[in-house]
């Protein structure tokens, strides 16, 4: 379990992380969601003892990361796939990590096999594609067979095949009972990967809930209606709902009355309908709605 209590990180007057409290439950995939610059990476670096919090603290099973004796056996992390010396081979990179935490050398070959890098194990990491680097980073995270895994934007810049691989991989890790904490700025990605969500913006907690709950709370249902008698229908519906007009094709967009009921109302009033379709708000829209107050830089 990862627990952050009133975590703060200030750089001068910039509050990268501000009074952030959350819990990452064991045995689940928890998504760490927020727009770019929301403080996700900073928070992860503080969890791992790389950055010192300005205030508050964050612990892993009640201990600071820096207190762990052989941290790689407890926590595996992939913060940046490029944290490898370009002239060092994949195997040598994993070898020194293994030796540092007294992990048997045979485990190096095991994790190379798991991520599918056995063939290129002796090649220089500097020549790896982003996808291969990412795999090497994951091999490093898995090296100590840790119960807790942290990934910072693991699918960023990957091709669809790589994204699918990582997504399936995380499910596998959670199925094995590990705690997976993964950050992303894409809600659609998290919706397919994470069971729980911690959403932050401008360094502050926006919401901590299950993914399902978050999506149903955040996305509003509405119904699209097209009719030759749109004006009349609009008058009737407006009594009990919010009705707007789709700017593109002039269809009515009804909030507040479910589709079957709209159909019945139309029948009672002998109004012909050409379309009656329930819509679900897009995840990205909902996310933008939630975090728009806390986006650091706006495009105008």
């Amino acid at each position, binding site marked *: 379990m990862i627990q952050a209590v009133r975590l703060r990180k200030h750089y001068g007057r910039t509050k990268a992380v501000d009074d952030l409290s959350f819990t990452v439950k064991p045995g689940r995939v928890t998504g760490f969601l927020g727009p770019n610059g929301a403080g996700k990476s900073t928070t992860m670096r503080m969890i791992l003892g790389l950055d010192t919090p300005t205030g508050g603290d964050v612990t892993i099973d009640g201990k600071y*990361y*820096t207190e762990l004796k052989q941290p790689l056996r407890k926590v595996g992390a992939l913060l940046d796939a490029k944290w*490898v010396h370009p002239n060092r081979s994949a195997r040598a990179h994993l070898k020194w990590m293994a030796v*540092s935490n007294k992990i048997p050398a045979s485990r190096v070959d095991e994790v190379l096999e798991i991520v599918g890098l056995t063939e290129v194990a002796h090649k220089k990491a500097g020549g790896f594609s982003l996808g291969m680097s990412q795999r090497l980073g994951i091999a490093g995270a898995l090296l100590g067979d840790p119960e807790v895994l942290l990934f910072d934007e693991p699918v960023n810049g990957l091709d669809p095949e790589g994204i699918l691989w990582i997504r399936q991989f995380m499910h596998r890790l959670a199925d094995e009972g590990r705690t997976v904490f993964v950050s992303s700025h894409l809600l659609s990605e998290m919706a397919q990967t994470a069971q729980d969500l911690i959403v932050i913006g401008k360094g502050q907690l926006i919401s901590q809930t299950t993914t399902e709950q978050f999506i149903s709370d955040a996305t509003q249902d509405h119904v699209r209606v097209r009719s030759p008698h749109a004006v009349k229908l609009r008058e009737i519906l407006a009594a009990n709902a919010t009705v707007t007009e789709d700017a593109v094709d002039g269809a009515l967009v009804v909030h507040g009355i479910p589709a079957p009921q709209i159909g019945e109302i139309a029948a009672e009033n002998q109004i012909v309908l050409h379309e009656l379709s329930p819509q679900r708000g897009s995840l990205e829209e909902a996310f933008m709605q939630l975090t728009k107050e806390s986006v650091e830089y706006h495009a105008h």
Partner: protein
Amino acid sequence: MTLLAVERIKLFSTRSPYWCTALALVLGVGLTAIITGTSEKGQMSIGLTQLGSSQLALAVVLVMSALAVTTEYRFNTIRATFLAVPGRTSALIAKTVVVAFIAGVLGEIIAFGSWGLAKVMSPTSDLAINTGAEWRHVAGVGLLYAVGAVLAIAVGILVRQTAGAVAILLVWNMLLEGLIGIIPKVGIKIQAWLPFQNANHFLALGGGNAADQPGAGIDFKLSQWGSLAYFAGIAVALLVVALVVAKRRDA
């Protein structure tokens, strides 16, 4: 011991230490070969055999040692290191020990290599190592390199950038300390307390041609071994500062 093994693997799984070692050997021994080849028959001295090792190759060793740290910052492997070994001080001390040891061994190889080559090229010269001063002059090069490596690593940790660290070390060692001697009257008094001047003083042979040797004309207050201890003291003090900074700083 574990951490020493880690740093050894890290160092020898990249190419720069091999290149720097080769370059130090070629420059150090090469300069001796040129001096021996151009000197009058039978006129080669022990002091001349070590100009390459104690001046030229030393600079390369300083660069190699600084690189051992700055490349870790350059490629962010320092963060991977601190993730694997959250006790930053012990990780950095292990690195210092490994690099200083390698520098020391390299120093002995270059020093005795230069001396051996001069002996072969100029068999009629008196190059026998008889006195304590002569032994110190040749075998002391390894000690000098080891201490220099500690100093360079400290600078590397503090500066974190290769270009900055290398510039500081080279200007400091090759220019700054020498130029201070130009200041009238007080210059040589200040020089007596500068680290690399004391390093030169440690190696100084004294005797007949003392005026030709590096560090000549400076009024040193310390004994020759005292100078080495002083040089080492400064290197260790700088390393302690660097370790404290590295511990407090965000990685």
